[in-house]
């Protein structure tokens, strides 16, 4: 807790134009009577709170910059065949290279969901086929699109932000701009298009493997018979759940690829800042995916 005179505190504040003790905690003032000191403590608290107001303005600033960045992707575009080749390359990087991790995560999530549901369903009045019904709905509605996309935001998001950040600090992006190429459009647009194409495919694969993982775990442990599991999968099926999952995957793909690209594209500094950009890309992507997940559920279900 810093100990400062009232005079030095306020003269410092006037000079710098901002409160200087925000990391050191509440300062203890001396040199004034108690009632004056109490007022000063209150003043300090109000100042601290007024500083907190800078968060929304910095968020809005960042949001505005992000929207301008998205707009710049469609200005002065290059030849279509350039994008076609780049999109195919990115589909391989984003999609094919992610099949392994998505398969592992999905299979185990399905298996664990099945076993834990079976563990909780102990009433003889509830049929065993309900286990499959719960696995199906959890997988299609939430686990396949959302968990897969959160896993992909870690793998794909950090890779996009790290790649673009490195290109920025090694002046490769400047080199593109000096050539008269719209660097944002050339580098980022193919990544977004590729993500929007391959994420739904990965989500379909994830859904299938998750349900199949549940089937294997349920039948191998004897929690449910194959007939009961297949019956449960077909029972009370809502067809809209499938397009809903695909809509979610498209929205998440756009958010993850664009936010990660934004973070990487505007990296400043050196290797340390590239790491920070990757971390921010993953954090911001995850938060935006969860927010979008809630909003889509409210809007579409």
């Amino acid at each position, binding site marked *: 807790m810093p100990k400062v005179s009232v005079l030095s505190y306020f003269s410092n504040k006037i000079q710098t134009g901002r409160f200087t003790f925000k990391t050191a905690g509440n300062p203890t003032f001396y040199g004034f009577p108690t009632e004056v000191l109490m007022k000063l403590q209150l003043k300090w608290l109000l100042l601290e709170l007024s500083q907190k107001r800078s968060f929304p303005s910095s968020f809005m600033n960042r949001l505005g910059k992000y929207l301008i960045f998205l707009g710049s992707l469609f200005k002065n575009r*290059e030849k279509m065949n350039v994008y076609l080749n780049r999109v195919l390359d990115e589909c391989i990087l984003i999609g094919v290279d992610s099949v392994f991790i998505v398969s592992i995560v999905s299979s185990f999530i399905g298996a664990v969901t099945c076993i834990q549901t079976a563990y909780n369903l102990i009433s003889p009045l509830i049929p065993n086929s309900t286990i499959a019904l719960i696995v199906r709905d959890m997988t299609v509605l939430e686990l396949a699109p959302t968990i897969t996309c959160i896993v992909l935001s870690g793998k794909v998001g950090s890779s996009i932000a790290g790649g673009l950040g*490195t290109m920025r600090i090694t*002046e*490769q992006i*400047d*080199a593109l*701009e*000096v*050539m*008269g190429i719209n660097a944002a459009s050339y580098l980022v647009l193919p990544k977004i298009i590729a993500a929007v194409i391959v994420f739904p495919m990965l989500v379909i694969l994830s859904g299938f493997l998750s349900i199949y993982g549940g089937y294997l775990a349920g039948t191998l442990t004897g929690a449910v018979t194959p007939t009961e599991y297949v019956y449960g999968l077909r029972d009370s099926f809502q067809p809209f759940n499938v397009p809903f999952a695909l809509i979610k995957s498209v929205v998440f793909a756009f958010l993850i690829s664009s936010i990660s690209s934004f973070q990487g594209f505007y990296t400043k500094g050196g290797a340390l800042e590239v790491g920070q950009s990757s971390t921010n890309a993953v954090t911001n992507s995850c938060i935006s995916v969860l927010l979008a997940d809630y909003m889509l559920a409210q809007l579409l279900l």
Partner: protein
Amino acid sequence: MIEIRNISKSFNDKQVLNGISGKFKNSDTSLIIGGSGTGKSVLLKCIVGLVKPDEGQVLYDGRDFWSGDTETKRAVRREIGMLFQGSALFDSKNVEENVMFPLHMLTNMPKSEKRDRVAFCLQRVGLENASKRMPSEISGGMQKRVGIARAIVMNPKYLFCDEPNSGLDPLTAIKIDDLIAEITDEFEITTIVVTHDMNSVMGIGEYIMFLYQGRKLWEGDSNSITETNIPELKEFLFANKLLKEIKEKEEEGS
């Protein structure tokens, strides 16, 4: 010819460039020199269009870059070749693909013609045998030469080099300087080199602009630079210990 008029630039409260003007003639190798943090690279970025100046004009053969429309800017940029400090080669492409990249993106040349042009440029910088190697597999000096090949592949009218000698041994640095000067004469281009290397100043500087704390303190050529009476420029020129000793001995002798 490239003309800059009254270029000023600030970052937050810090004034980096303060009213800089100058003319860089065709077929001349012009140098912008000065100590670290004097605004050389920022000035170069203002000229090539990477950083917008707060005030002033950049004229490419009379075309005002910053007040021009998008098409004018694009047209000017396609006449520019630039060698970056760290070469800025694309990591995912090999040497040949790096040099071919501007042709691929900006022209409709047939593939065979592109290959011929790339082969010519690589041969010009002495790298005809390294075309299939990746940037990570070649030395810093070779990376600079690939950067030069990529910069000249589009037959530019203007060539910019940001500290082409940084990180190179003195012999390789001289080779790179000579290559830049030869290319400038051979293709009759306007070349601007940002450097603080004294070998470059004395070797290839046909027009030299000295920056100090964001201001232009001196301009002239390599013959007149040693006769300067400006203390800041003298200090910069004779910062090298060997040169300093030679100068002191000369003064003692006279």
